[in-house]
């Protein structure tokens, strides 16, 4: 003020001789002073200020405001000043700078950043490009300053984040730009383009997840503001281009991260943004395919499945093993064990134990997946998983487990198999439980509109895991009911009764319905057959046939060849057989050639009854794992 007022005073005191004179005099003196100030700065300070001036974005640290102001003005004079244009340049540099920057910086430092945040999401390539360039330049300058920087470390980190976000955003915008899209469409396949966009979106989402740029309430508002902008921009893009299917889960991820952030931080606090964001989301639902849009909310759940699938499937070979071979092996093993101990009544409990173990493993895997650092990334995500997603998944798993085990146990316990009423009731109960599950989830989400509730319920039913779940329910029920109508199961039950009464030292015969056969023909049925210690052959299992040529073929999952040439024929219709002619299968698999063993399994499949359980179990595995695979392929 002193220089200006000194010149002004002289000018006024001298009767306003020449009006511009006082200003000119002031500027000449001020310019000299500016030069002195500029020269007094460190070289790196000058570099930084030049860079800052170029980008029009000044360091925000309060200590540098003054430096920035003076140096920028000085720079303006220093670089361009000449006698004729001094006045104009001074005025422009000084006045505009003060008005546009310094006052804002001094009064509200965050306002500047808010402006930038608010503006960067515009789908405008030029803006994004220039902003990115500015930031990169600024960042380079800031990096030069290292420890001596007048910025705090936090500011530096924030700048890095900003630059990364801009970089990612810029790449995204390039990909999304219409003309560019068309050009690329000619060169690239759609899938490749989608992958590229997805990658960018995922990167962007990653930054959002990491970004704790502000750490204060003001920052959260900005976050919400950003979320709203993202939603708006993407909706706008979708509306414009009508390319609803172009995005994969990257888009979902961006939105889900934003929405979960808001939920996590209780976005009621930010009422002014809440409505806007919800509106934007509704618009998104309208534009976007609903099932996919609503998956945004549940994407985390999908990722649990993905995690599960990842832990299961390390290679296609493992997959085949897990889905197809494992149930067979387990079933065979169980039968072998039963057979060895001559305790068929333990077959079902063992099978049931296996089912329990498998489901516990599923739950454990999900739990591990849900709490995994790699999966969750951030503490807030972890909390979300603990609070919301994991319980739901656990509940679904438990229900699936209960239904599966109930089916298995019921098959073993029911005496009156012919009564279909029981199964119908069981099926109805399962449907009821599942409906309740879906409805409870809808209620939990505080869905008021019936239509939306229905939509969401539909969505829940369409989530891969639940699809799989329904498949298990239906297949289990059908497979449990249909084959068991046969008399074979009765045979099992009767055999069980006989087994309990028989003396341990004696042969257990397991022909259930005591079918009379021709002397030369013996059919033995049951799940297993075993040779007795007293040189008697026990033929057991689902079915066994004796050939007309006095060959005893024991079938089922287990059968043993008699060592002592004696065959006890079950149900009092036993016929002696020549041991040399006895062919065993199932439990004596070790004694059979592999080909024969597998052939025997195939035959079992045809006969159905005992093989019913492997099928059921294989399917109960197959379905969720297929669903998990779908997720892992990114279609969820």
């Amino acid at each position, binding site marked *: *003020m*002193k*220089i*200006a*007022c*000194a010149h*002004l*005073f*002289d000018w*006024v*005191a*001298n*009767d306003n001789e020449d009006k511009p004179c006082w*200003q000119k005099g*002031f500027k000449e003196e*001020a310019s000299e*002073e500016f030069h*002195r*100030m500029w020269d*007094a700065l460190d070289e790196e300070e000058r570099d930084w200020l030049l860079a800052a001036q170029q980008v029009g974005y000044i360091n925000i640290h*309060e*200590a540098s*405001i*003054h*430096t920035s*102001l*003076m140096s920028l*003005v000085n720079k303006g004079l220093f670089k361009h000043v000449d006698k004729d244009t001094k006045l104009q340049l001074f*005025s422009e540099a*000084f*006045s505009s700078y*003060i008005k546009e920057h*310094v006052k804002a910086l*001094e009064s509200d430092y965050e306002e500047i950043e808010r402006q930038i945040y608010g503006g960067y999401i515009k789908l405008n390539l030029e803006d994004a490009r220039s902003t990115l360039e500015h930031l990169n330049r600024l960042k380079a300058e800031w990096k030069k300053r290292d*420890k*001596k920087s*007048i910025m705090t470390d936090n500011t530096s980190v924030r700048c890095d984040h900003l630059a990364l976000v801009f970089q990612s955003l810029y790449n995204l915008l390039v990909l999304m730009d219409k003309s560019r899209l068309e050009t690329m469409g000619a060169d690239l396949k759609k899938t490749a383009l989608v992958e590229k966009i997805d990658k960018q979106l995922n990167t962007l989402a990653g930054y959002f997840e990491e970004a704790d740029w502000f750490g204060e309430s003001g920052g959260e508002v900005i976050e919400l503001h950003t979320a709203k902008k993202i939603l708006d921009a993407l909706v706008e893009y979708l509306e414009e281009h009508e390319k609803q299917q172009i995005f994969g889960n990257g888009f979902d991820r961006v939105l889900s991260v934003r929405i979960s952030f808001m939920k996590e931080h209780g976005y009621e606090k930010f009422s002014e943004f809440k409505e806007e964001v919800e509106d934007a989301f509704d618009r998104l639902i309208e534009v976007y395919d609903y099932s996919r849009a609503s998956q945004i909310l549940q994407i985390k759940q999908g990722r649990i499945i993905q995690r599960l699938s990842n832990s299961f499937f390390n290679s296609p070979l493992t997959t085949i093993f897990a889905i197809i071979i494992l149930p067979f092996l387990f079933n065979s093993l169980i039968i072998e064990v039963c057979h060895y101990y001559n305790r068929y009544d333990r077959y079902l409990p063992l099978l049931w134990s296996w089912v329990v173990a498998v489901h516990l493993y599923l739950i454990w895997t999900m739990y591990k997946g849900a709490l995994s650092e790699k999966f969750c990334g951030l503490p807030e995500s972890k909390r979300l998983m603990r609070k919301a997603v994991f319980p739901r998944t656990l509940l679904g798993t438990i229900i699936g487990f209960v239904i599966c085990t109930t089916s298995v146990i019921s098959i073993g316990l029911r005496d009156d198999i012919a009564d279909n009423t029981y199964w119908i009731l069981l099926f109805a109960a399962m449907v009821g439980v599942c409906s309740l599950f879906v409805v409870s989830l809808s209620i939990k989400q505080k869905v008021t509109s019936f239509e939306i509730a229905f939509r969401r319920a539909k969505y829940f039913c369409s989530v891969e895991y639940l699809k799989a779940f329904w498949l298990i329910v239906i297949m289990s029920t059908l497979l449990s009911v249909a084959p068991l109508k046969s008399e074979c199961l009765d045979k099992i039950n009767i055999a069980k009764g006989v087994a309990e009464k028989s003396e341990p030292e004696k042969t257990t015969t397991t022909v259930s319905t005591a079918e009379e056969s021709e002397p030369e023909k013996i059919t033995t049925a049951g799940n297993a057959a075993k040779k007795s210690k007293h040189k008697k052959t026990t033929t057991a299992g689902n079915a066994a046939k004796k050939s007309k040529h006095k060959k005893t073929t024991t079938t089922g999952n287990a059968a043993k060849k008699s060592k002592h040439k004696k065959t006890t024929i079950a149900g009092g219709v036993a016929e002696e057989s020549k041991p040399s002619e006895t062919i065993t299968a199932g439990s004596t698999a070790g004694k059979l050639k592999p080909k024969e063993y597998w052939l025997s399994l195939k035959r079992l499949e045809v006969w159905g009854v005992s093989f019913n359980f492997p099928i059921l179990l294989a399917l109960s595995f197959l379905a969720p794992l297929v669903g998990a695979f779908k997720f892992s392929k990114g279609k969820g």
Partner: protein
Amino acid sequence: MKGETINPFLNRNKVTSSEEFFGRKKEIAKILDRITYPEPQSVAVIGERRSGKSSLLTHIYHLLSEQKADNPGDNKLVCIFLDPEEIATEHASDMTWVIIDELVSENQSLLEYIRAYPPRDKEKAIPERHPRIILKNLLKEACKDKYRFVFIIDEFELLAKNKELSESGYLQYMRGISDNYALAFVTSSRKSLEEICLEHNVGASPFDNNFSSPLYLGLLKENECKELIQGALKKFGCEPNYLSPFEEEAIELAGEHPYF
């Protein structure tokens, strides 16, 4: 008025008279709050060249002196202004003597504490350390009698640049005495103390550790600019509204900077 009145704005040096100092009320209040606290708090004033740091510090010094003059009963707050030009080239021992001298000239009663604690063993004592011990003991005993001290150090950079002082750990010594006794510093510098200490490798123990948050000296407020113009005019016998038709223009042009 033409040709008769001296231009009130010609002084381009620091303002040494309180009557010529205008504005910065908020900053002044902040500084006074901190240094007149029962346990005085150190303040670092940071600002660019020509932003009025020295004038502000001088003004603070005068304010404290006036306060003391208004209330002679309360002479327990002793404030000294250390001239940067004077102390920048001093040796450590000389620097301490300067401080002691300033303290005594500020408050004669402090002499008693010096007399009471002469170096105990003159022969064995290290000569360079004598003044430090004397100053330390002076502060120690005076603080027992409820004295409080404020050292105003303008242009702290000059002090930090003095290699002799930094190598002899003088700033650590200063920090030590301010930690232990009712002593506060008011410094002014262009950069933050942290940066200055880093730049000049001043000791392992940061001098700025016990400073409260720095006070940044920015531009004047619009009303302060007007106060400056009108106050200066008034002091020199002009009408306060003498320049009022052009005030806005001048403020805009100078960008509310006190110097420009």
